């Protein structure tokens, strides 16, 4: 085995928040420290990067002491929560950002796809954009010329090749852009979450192409995704980043099971400060105080065999007066993030004061979905939905993992081909409200 990427003690520090007038003063301080031979005073205050806990300083280590090797021809997956540092790592690998300390050695030409269609110009025709985008990605004119026909062929937009791309549908645009990227011939291909855009067919095509590039031509692929399913299909090896640190590195199977372990440690509490709006929204009138998945015997786990009943236990607390409470639990498709099925239950119709806690357990007795991983979505609202939700937890808990068991039935959902929404029976098997917490606390 021949290593083509060697990452040694790599760290990256970022400054959060607005760059204001203060920065001139800071730069002077830094300069003075350097001048008098002292250590950079700002390097000390960096702390590990935990998204949910508000840091005390404005400096944050997006990556901290990362070490790993990637061998020739390997397909490597990188996973981790939002803000774990995945994109930062790829940016450094593609030389868009520089490391703060440490270094990376690379063998061979690197092409990175941090986005599809970088530099596309709307006024130019498809043809011109192929040349422009190709050169931006590092191809020479001759190279593009020789591959032109095959690029056009792959994109399937021949008819519009001499039309300005501003007249393209967004799907055609993405197809053309990916066609160019797919014809890059680097020794090392770096791909960040491009699968998040585009339809299921496009996603599959991308995955297939990346697989071919590596399998048939022996190229190295590094692929970042939140889609564990895609990682599992594509990558032999995977590494996990957690709060900027390397948490695990090894064979995909093993690493993925560790990832579930890691996610298990997330405790959703009412005071979890989650600044990422994508993951937690709501106005704070009511908050989840815990979320857990249980099996039939009441044991907590997120991995279930196909056909097993799945229970979710949640508790909450009100912070403002609520006009009744409803709970929604949705099971999402890992590939397309569409909602596959959901349970929607009234917890109570009565008006609730602030300071009331409650607990509920919802059971899906027959969740007939194919083996795979399904992100979960939890939501609390008023009884009458008045335009905004009170608390939303989106993909912050571990995903629901369904394993192929003995009793595989012909199931309806396929994570690779999400085919719409399915009604699944679910029932509320526990529902308790405790109105006296405030008083109890005061004594």
């Amino acid at each position: 085995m021949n290593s083509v990427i060697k990452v040694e003690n790599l760290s990256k520090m970022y400054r959060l928040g607005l760059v204001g007038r203060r920065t001139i003063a800071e730069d002077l301080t830094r300069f003075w420290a350097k001048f008098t031979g002292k250590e950079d005073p700002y390097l000390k205050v960096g702390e590990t990067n935990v998204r949910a806990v508000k840091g005390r300083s404005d400096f944050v280590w997006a990556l901290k002491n990362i070490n790993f090797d990637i061998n020739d021809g390997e397909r490597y997956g990188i996973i981790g929560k939002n803000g774990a540092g995945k994109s930062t790592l790829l940016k450094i690998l593609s030389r868009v950002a520089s490391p703060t300390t440490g270094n990376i050695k690379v063998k061979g030409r690197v092409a990175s796809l941090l986005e599809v269609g970088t530099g596309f110009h709307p006024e130019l025709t498809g043809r011109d954009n192929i040349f422009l985008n190709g050169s931006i990605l590092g191809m020479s004119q001759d190279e593009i010329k020789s591959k032109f026909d095959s690029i056009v062929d792959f994109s399937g937009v021949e008819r519009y090749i001499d039309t300005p791309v501003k007249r393209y549908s967004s799907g055609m645009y993405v197809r053309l852009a990916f066609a160019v990227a797919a014809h890059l011939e680097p020794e090392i291909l770096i791909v960040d979450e491009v699968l998040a855009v585009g339809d299921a067919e496009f996603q599959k095509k991308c995955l297939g192409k990346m697989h071919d590039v590596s399998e048939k031509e022996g190229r190295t692929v590094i692929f970042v995704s939140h889609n564990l399913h895609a990682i599992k299909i594509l990558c032999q090896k995977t590494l996990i980043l957690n709060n900027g640190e390397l948490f695990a590195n090894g064979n995909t199977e093993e690493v993925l099971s560790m990832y579930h372990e890691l996610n298990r440690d997330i405790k959703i509490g009412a005071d979890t400060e989650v600044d990422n709006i994508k993951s937690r929204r709501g106005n704070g009138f009511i908050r989840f105080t815990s979320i857990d998945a249980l099996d039939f015997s009441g044991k907590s786990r997120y991995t279930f065999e196909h056909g097993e009943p799945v229970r979710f236990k949640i508790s909450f607390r009100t912070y403002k007066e609520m006009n009744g409470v409803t709970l929604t639990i949705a099971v999402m498709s890992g590939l397309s993030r569409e909602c596959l099925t959901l349970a929607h239950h009234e917890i109570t119709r009565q008006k609730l004061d602030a300071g009331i806690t409650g607990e509920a357990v919802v059971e899906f007795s027959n969740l007939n979905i194919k083996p795979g991983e399904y992100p979960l979505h939890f939501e609390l609202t008023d009884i009458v939905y008045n335009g905004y939700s009170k608390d939303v937890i989106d993909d912050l808990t571990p995903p629901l993992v369904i394993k192929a068991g003995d009793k595989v039935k012909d199931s309806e959902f396929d994570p690779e081909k999400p085919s719409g929404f399915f009604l699944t029976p679910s029932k509320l098997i526990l529902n308790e409200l405790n109105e006296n917490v405030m008083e109890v606390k005061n004594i």
Partner: protein
Amino acid sequence: MKKSQSESEWTLEIKPVSGWFNFHLKDVWKYRDLLFMFVKRDFVSVYKQTILGPFWFFLQPILTTITFTIVFGNIAKIPTDGIPPILFYMSGIVCWGYFSDCLTRTSSTFITNANIFGKVYFPRLVSPLSNIISLLMKFGIQMILLIGFLIYFKMNGSDVNPNIYILLTPYLILLMAGLGLGFGIIVSSLTTKYRDFTFLVSFGVQLLMYATPVIYPLSALPEKYKWIVLANPMTSIVDTFRYAFLGAGTFNAGNLLYTSVFVVLILSIGIIVFNRVEKTFMDTV
């Protein structure tokens, strides 16, 4: 033993930003295809966006020339070295226009390209370089206009004498481009950190025009202030340009040499600063 062998094969080493002098001008040459594509993009998009696109290139210097002729020629009665005011102003405006376009365009390099710089690596210098090349299109069109007027005035018996110094034009263009680029990339590097620099530029460029013999000839200046204008590196360029095409004023090799040295200096400083900033810039946007 085995280790040293494999270590020598690494083709690229990514390291923290250090030092000011490790730039990769060779890389810029490797990316000349991209430079060409950027220029082509600018050409095509100007051409396609509006039918009026190239037309504006004509209109702008004509309108400015008319304004200057009225304000500075007829009202303020500033002499023009005995040259028809229209030719005098237009020659100054065309030169100055190219320089100031180069400066303002390249000074926003990092801001206008933030998105693409954040997604893909190429030597960043390719962007401002493509700008100054693209701007030659506008300059060329305006030169044709100027030459048209020149021929018209000459045929009507005006005292204008284009001469052999016209051969210096490419060199003058190179100087203007270098000057605009040098200042522009310095400013663009500063704007990534301290955004207030953006206004300073547009204001500064305007101010600088009045310290350049665009609306007045060098000969009309009181001796006392001459040194200020002569210290301005654009002065000798505009002056030589006018001398070559209109035969007015003087040709002073010393002044041109001063400008050349200035250009080399400012361009070197610019490239050093720019190279440093291009590596840390993505962290500050």
